[in-house]
């Protein structure tokens, strides 16, 4: 099967590679670029572990052929931290609020939440829950993930984060 040459920008860096047309974007990221932070959970578009930003929108990278992403800009979990290497507000939120247990869904959750907060900087709890409904977590029951996103939202907006009473 003939391979196709593709180029795209990933976390700010120009990258290129030779791929079969059937190569999924998530495999290109993990195997060609060795960016293994993006996880493969179900590979059937359900779980959201493979969520990345593609041209400023959240998508599931197991549901995109690498050739479809040619010329686009991709943001993965490896590009989320602050430029000085310190944790971004969302990463800090997941740490402080115990937003992860096994951690498998976490890269997808954080990349998705990153875009959610770009689109809606102060989401309500219901908006957060709807916003991450394409990301499945089997450990946390979502409570602490919601809190982590609320923590990041408050930090970015300079407002006070208050945990709701249980």
């Amino acid at each position, binding site marked *: *099967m003939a391979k*196709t040459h593709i180029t795209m920008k990933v976390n700010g860096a120009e990258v290129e590679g030779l791929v*079969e*047309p*059937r190569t*999924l974007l998530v495999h290109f990221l993990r195997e060609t670029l060795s960016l293994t932070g993006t996880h493969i959970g179900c*590979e*059937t*578009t359900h779980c*959201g572990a493979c*969520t990345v930003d593609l041209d400023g*929108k*959240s*998508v*599931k990278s*197991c*549901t*995109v*052929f690498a*050739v*479809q992403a040619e010329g686009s800009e991709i943001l993965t979990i490896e590009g989320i931290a602050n430029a000085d290497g310190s944790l971004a507000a969302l990463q800090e939120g997941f740490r402080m609020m115990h937003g992860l247990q096994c951690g498998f869904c976490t890269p997808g959750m954080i990349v*998705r939440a990153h*875009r*959610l907060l770009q689109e809606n900087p102060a989401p*309500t709890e*219901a*908006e957060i*829950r*709807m*916003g991450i*409904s*394409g*990301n499945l977590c089997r450990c946390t029951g979502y409570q602490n993930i919601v809190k982590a996103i609320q923590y990041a939202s408050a930090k970015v907006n300079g407002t006070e984060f208050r945990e709701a009473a249980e």
Partner: protein
Amino acid sequence: MTPFDYIRPATIAEAVAAAATPGAAYLAAGTNLLDLMKGGISRPTRVVDISRLPGLDRIEALPDGSVRIGALVRNADLAHDAAFARAFPSVAEALLSGASAQLRNAATVGGNLLQRTRCSYFHDAASACNKRSPGAGCDARGGENRLHAVLGWSDACIATHPSDFCVPLVAFDAVVEIEGSGGRREIALEALHRLPDAAPERDAVLDPGDLIVAVRLPAAARNFAAHARYLKLRERTSYAFAVVSAAAALDLDGGTIKSARLALGGVAAKPWRARAAESLLAGASPGLPAFRRAAETALAGATPSGDNGFKIELAQRMVARALSLAAAGTPARVPALPASPFSSTAGALHVA
């Protein structure tokens, strides 16, 4: 995944020519096609990537009051287009009730219309399925079929069409523009999807190479903007296909219904327009007695295709509830849980 040739045509004419050969499939976002290919359910030998064709990603207000939606407009972009959502709020609500943010960001208008059924026997290569392998039989008939069709099904196939978007569209007389090897033609969306009869392998009345280029909503659909709702019952609060859904819209004149629109989702192999129920509502006074009569009429021909007799009464209740919600008025903004029966909206009736 079976290997394939990847072609990215520059024009619609090139696309139609490239896709007219046997074994070819169009690729837009691929949110449905990729999963079908990963599971071996669809094995195209040639994939024609139309996602970069110019001019198909626009939402255009036409001089006659209609709206033309390009086939490559993304579901999220359409639902969040302020002018569109104001004029056609139940269409926006239906879009936002579907899938998840990631999928709505990618999925296109044309792809939504042509998505395949989510019948689990269609998706399981080890099961018999007449839609996937004509003549193989239908394991859904004797299987887990509580979510299957109650209207328009045949002995060959009891699958349902999964789209939310198509339900209000068909209620509003949407028109589909198709480019084919014989040139441009258009048909009513209601006539696009086929009932299964003896040939369930054909979802739609399209020929090889036919490309949906746009969907148009006629100006008359604007008359319902103040009283239009989509209601969708799911087995989870979000990120699930409809068990039953209903798009209801009323054009009210004081205490009388001037005109009504009604369609159901999750009940048949196509979005199901309920014209007899609409006729019954025209001239009636809005309220539960009229809405319940309309609901009974809408499901008059329904029969269980398996363990799904409950869907008939459920659909009737959904129709009455959707009409009640429409009569109460379109909410100022789409609820945080779009189309959910569990969303509390002022004026909504929770016991219909």
